[in-house]
């Protein structure tokens, strides 16, 4: 081939390297912010850097982080799922209700207790599958479908439980919600494993890379031989199943399924994802970034709590904190958020 094409600028080779490094660093953009928060926390409170406190932060964030993992993948593929937070409540509530007798608030179906976990996962698959069916096969707006599901699933849970908390929770849930493995709570291990698998899949598997192609340009992805609908459907189902796992962990940790379990989490989920560099327009961002978004929110929250800000104020100031975090990351990463 012709040699006359060689780029005119002698300095292109280093620029390639530079660009590459920059792309790598963007993934780690929040790490300095997280370190800064650790330092601030340590200065403000002597117990901040103790293992117990840090483990507490991780445990508190574990459920949120699973939702963010699911949502991040859904956002990368160019969709969104608002109903995740209702799935967090409905799946364990329905599974438990199918097992316990009506005297304890159940449905008197009397399924075996060991079925609790598989049943939950099945419910997650069904919800994600239904979302996918309505969006991909019927061709409805993803935003509206999942907004509708958000309301409907929550309503379903209220109807089943008549608005009461279910306290007769199966052993398997309690075990997962409270046990520790090698010094870390099981919930934290589960998150670590899920994120590790997710990061690996999205980086090293063709199926994972196809999420970026679909989110970036679904027509081009289709023309390149990617089965767009199938991939999106699977991602929606995985998102729902991750929400179910979060719901199981939450139920186990609290020892009951509250009628409001998961309510309001979707705001934090989106906040963490966007702070972590996931684009709401699809095709951009990494799961590592999303995870750092979760950690950042967790640290801010814990600092406020240790400062003795009352629970009421934590709630009140949470929106402000998230907007502040968005501003901080906007300038820390130098990237416009989408």
């Amino acid at each position, binding site marked *: *081939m*012709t040699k*006359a*094409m060689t*780029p*005119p*600028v002698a*300095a*292109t*080779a*280093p*620029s*390639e390297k*530079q*660009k*590459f490094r920059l*792309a790598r660093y963007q993934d780690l953009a929040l790490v300095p912010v997280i370190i800064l928060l650790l330092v601030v926390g340590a200065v403000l409170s002597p117990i901040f850097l103790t293992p117990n406190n840090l483990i507490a932060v991780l445990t508190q964030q574990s459920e949120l982080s699973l939702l963010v993992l699911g949502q991040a993948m859904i956002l990368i593929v160019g969709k969104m799922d608002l109903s995740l937070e209702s799935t967090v409540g409905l799946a364990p509530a329905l599974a438990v209700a199918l097992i316990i007798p009506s005297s304890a608030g159940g449905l008197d179906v009397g399924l075996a207790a060991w079925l609790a976990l598989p049943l939950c996962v099945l419910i997650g698959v069904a919800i994600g599958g239904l979302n996918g069916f309505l969006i991909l096969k019927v061709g409805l707006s993803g935003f509206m479908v999942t907004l509708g599901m958000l309301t409907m699933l929550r309503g379903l849970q209220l109807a089943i439980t008549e608005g009461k908390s279910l306290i007769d929770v199966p052993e398997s849930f309690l075990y997962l919600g409270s046990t520790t493995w090698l010094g870390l709570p099981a919930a934290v291990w589960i998150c670590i494993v899920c994120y590790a698998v997710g990061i690996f899949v999205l*980086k*090293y*598997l*063709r*199926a*994972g*890379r196809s999420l*970026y*192609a679909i989110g*970036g*340009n679904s*027509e*081009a*992805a*289709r*023309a*390149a*031989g*990617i*089965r767009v609908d199938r991939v999106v459907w699977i991602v929606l189902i995985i998102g729902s199943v991750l929400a179910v796992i979060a719901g199981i962990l939450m139920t186990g940790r609290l020892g009951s399924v509250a009628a409001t379990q998961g309510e309001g989490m979707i705001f934090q989920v989106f906040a963490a994802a966007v702070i972590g560099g996931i684009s709401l327009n699809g*095709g*951009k961002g990494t799961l590592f970034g999303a995870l750092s978004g979760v950690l950042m929110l967790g640290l801010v929250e814990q600092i406020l709590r240790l400062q003795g800000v009352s629970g009421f104020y934590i709630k009140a100031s949470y929106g402000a904190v998230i907007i502040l975090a968005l501003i901080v990351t906007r300038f820390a990463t130098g990237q416009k958020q989408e």
Partner: protein
Amino acid sequence: MNEFAAVARGVTKRFGRTLALDDVGIEIRAGESHALVGRNGAGKSTLVSVLTGMQAPDAGEVTFFGEPAPPVADSAAWRRHVACVYQKSTVVPELSVAENLFINRQDLGGGLISWKKLRSEASSLLETYDVAVRPDALVSTLTVEQRQLVEIARALSIGSRFVILDEPTAQLDGPAIERLFDRMRSLQDRGVTFLFISHHLQEVYEVCQTVTVYRDARHIVTAAVAEMSKPDLIEAMTGEAGGLNVPSGDGRPSSAEEVLTVASLSGDHFSDISLSATRGEVIGLAGSASSGKHEFAETVYGLRKPSLGTISVNGAAVRGGDVPAALRAGIGCVPRDRHHQGLVLDLSIAENATMSTAGAFVWPSAQRAAGGTAIASYDVKAAGPDQPVSDLSGGNQQKVVMARALAGDPSVLVLINPTAGVDVKSKESLLGVVDAQARRGKAAIVVSDELDDLRVCDRVLVLFHGQVVKEFSRGWRDQELISAIEGMSTE
């Protein structure tokens, strides 16, 4: 009045460490059609973005009729000086033609929008510039040609007397190009100045009076078109003496072994087409934009579902409407529109080039190596395999699409406008790739109106209204083929 409609001096523009323009200038005399040519990545579109106020140059100045250009922030002021038809359309598809013509001034100065007045103003504007579209038609329903005309009419109605056309002919068929040129000539008679960018040098000779050549971000020469022979022009563009040598495919070994068999295929906009391609055979498909040639090719690759008929590769039937099945069967494709279907702009060159190749695991180092190979073998001008495709110039993006189509070593190639937006020299090497693939025993279908693309073919089928109406074997004369294509489309 100044004799120059637009002048740029000492313009330098960097993207990271890529120097896109290196102290270049251009002087465009009022009332002329000025051609800007150069190889892919020479900096033409970057100059356009500087001349239209889309991007501020790092250094240098722009003047219009002697007046310094407005600041980059004041886009309204720029619009009064200069208008541009970019290769990607800038009209709003879901609004009517009338509203697009008066976008952001729909009230016509009255404060409230009067839809009736808007429509009547729009139809008189369309009449003035002789554009035959209904003012209340949605822009999304227009053809590419009509959309370009609406954009030109809008530009002129804002008061600009200087219009930039960045590769306007790349997506038009022959008669539409002729109509565009007639319009350019008549507007030029009314005092409009054009800056015209194209990779088809004969078009430069047809409509322009002056030509400027850029190469590797630098200004090489500006001369009267009449004083510049085609070989001189090509030499200025490439920096090498010697004309072009588009491969003709003569002496390619033929074989009787059928690779691709299409049996009475019907689908969107075409019906009952049968053809078979043997090892080493390249078949051209020509015809107007509405002839169904694109739809036929897309159906063969599985982008569209056939309504009837079968496609088979090496004797095995391929499921219709299923791209992965087509890829598995060994069909590779360059789709029609690189922005729409060809590329994921935010992803890297390496990732785009390897997107169709099967294999569950993606090793970044192997992917980068494959990207590097693609850059080297298709003459892509880029900083490296990690560069996002959105940073590349139009022609270089097209080469990445070609690299992707060939990545899986398919036995059948379906190439739709494979050289769209590609410079003369790279066209030669891309067509050389097609020829080389055929010599290795692959079969190819080339869908194009460009004679250079069709010259590499063993036979050319002309489509009209979804049917094959004529077949030319090698050795056709240009005029013969052109009139077959155009005669059909005007009938």
